């Protein structure tokens, strides 16, 4: 089963929930994996402190033009939707940062003057945190395309195991790539106007993608009760609530796992799993 932890708004506690959830599950079984898909700002490793066993690069192909074979016909720049390959005077220029790696220019060139070279856009690290399989992706600074790195992270998911996917904030392409194909999404929010506004957007997104989901309210005792009202009005299952506990904030700041430091919270994450199973069988 693949369970993603997501939220529209950043900083609501996705990583806290995802890492502690993975740890709680791993205390009863050996097939738990944690996959950090927030490749722009991955933080799971700070808490799970994995031992990295394998490192790989994530590449995106970019065109390389053999200027001797090129007849300046312009077909490559015509097919390119990203202005990544353009004719300037008597030369074809490639702008690798703009390239999506679609391969169009390569196939359209009648002179076969274009080949592809691999450009590194990020890194993939595979490891172990206790008995948890740990994988995260890291987008190289200055690179714009997160989805191919996210895809590489998800390719490491082992079939027939329990995989917790830590998604990036927002509602656009990196989030879609992260939650594509998952069985359930835990939406983490906080009971504030910003939290509610971003929750609405995420709920709309999940309804559009037809992925089952439920809501976890973090720091439920701050703000107001509009988030709970929204959930009951929309018939959305409230999976769990976590209080604004200064002990959590302190242990988070130091990179400690909540359920290791404050064991009473372990049941919150065990219950979360039961709630998900119940919601899925509804």
């Amino acid at each position, binding site marked *: 089963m693949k369970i993603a932890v997501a939220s529209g708004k*950043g900083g609501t506690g996705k990583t806290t929930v995802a890492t502690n959830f993975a740890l709680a599950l791993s205390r009863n079984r050996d097939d738990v994996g944690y996959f950090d898909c927030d490749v722009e700002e991955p933080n799971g490793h700070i808490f799970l402190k994995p031992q990295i066993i394998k490192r790989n690069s994530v590449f995106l192909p970019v065109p390389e033009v053999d200027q001797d074979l090129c007849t300046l016909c312009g077909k490559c720049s015509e097919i390119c939707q990203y202005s990544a390959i353009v004719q300037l005077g008597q030369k074809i220029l490639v702008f690798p940062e703009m390239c999506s790696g679609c391969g169009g220019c390569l196939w359209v060139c009648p002179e076969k003057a274009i080949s592809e070279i691999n450009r590194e856009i990020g890194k993939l690290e595979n490891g172990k945190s206790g008995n948890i399989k740990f994988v995260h992706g890291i987008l190289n600074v200055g690179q714009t395309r997160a989805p191919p790195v996210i895809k590489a992270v998800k390719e490491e998911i082992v079939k027939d195991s329990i995989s917790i996917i830590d998604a990036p904030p927002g509602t656009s392409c990196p989030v879609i790539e992260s939650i594509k194909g998952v069985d359930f999404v835990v939406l983490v929010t906080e009971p504030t106007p910003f939290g509610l506004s971003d929750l609405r957007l995420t709920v709309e997104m999940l309804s559009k993608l037809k992925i089952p989901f439920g809501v976890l309210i973090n720091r439920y005792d701050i703000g107001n009760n509009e988030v709970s009202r929204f959930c009951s009005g929309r018939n959305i299952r409230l999976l769990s609530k976590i209080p604004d506990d200064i002990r959590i904030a302190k242990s988070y700041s130091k990179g400690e796992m909540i359920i290791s430091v404050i064991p009473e919270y372990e049941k919150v994450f065990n219950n979360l799993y039961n709630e998900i199973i119940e919601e899925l069988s509804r």
Partner: protein
Amino acid sequence: MKELVVLSGKGGTGKTSLVASFAALAKNAILADCDVDAPDLCIILSPKMLEIKDFIGGKKARIMHGHCTACGKCEELCRFDAIFYDGPGNGMQDKTFRIDQQACEGCGVCAWFCEEHAIEFKEVVNGKLFISNTRFGELVHAQLGIAEENSGKLVTLVKEKAKEIGESKKSDLLIVDGSPGIGCPVIASTSGANLLLVVTEPTLSGIHDMERVLHLGKHFNIPSAICINKWDLNEEMSGKIEEIASRNGSKIVGKIKYDRVVIKAQVNKLSVVEYTDDGVAKDIKKVWSNVRTLLS
């Protein structure tokens, strides 16, 4: 016109709350919300929309099922796994190919190479751009369509529009509320900036993410300043942030203490400096005055 871009790397460190207060404190500034995925500045600023524009982010491919001969060429060429052999039948074929609109990257390769010309490749509206009036001046903001792409392009459009208005109104400052992360929309929001203000918090995650944004600033040669929000939650970590700042050559423009009044202000749809005068508001005013000094 100077340009201040507020970023954080990590989400939820207080970018939007701080920008709302800056908006209240600034005189003659133009505001731009470049978090087009999850725009929240409008919640505090209660904008009156003057103009709404469709945003065309690019094109998308769609198979005209009546013309598809199910040859499979499109599926073979698509590098984004967007094409599936589960489209409706059409008399000639039991099944045809279908393009998942969310997965389509808009490269147009399938449409170009389809021998039957069975794929249309058209511009799509995938967001909205708003020009609004607020109690603190003009705000340019946007909403990317749900599950859409090209957020970087929309961010660029928001900034262009804001600059245009700023110049015509002879504003001296553009304040940009950025999005979390360091990818496509963030990079788009930093272009042309005079200063990046990185809002961080004294946690290991906050520090880790701040360092990546500082790295991004260096990569694009834009000076960065740092504001430590909720600094008293972990004073030791705040000390670490100050060390990193001096190593990086970034100025600490202020430290804001942790105070639940920030949430109360948000619930009341007010910026912190409108809601209260003391404590945390004083911290924010100090940050603002330091930022103004750095910009001038």
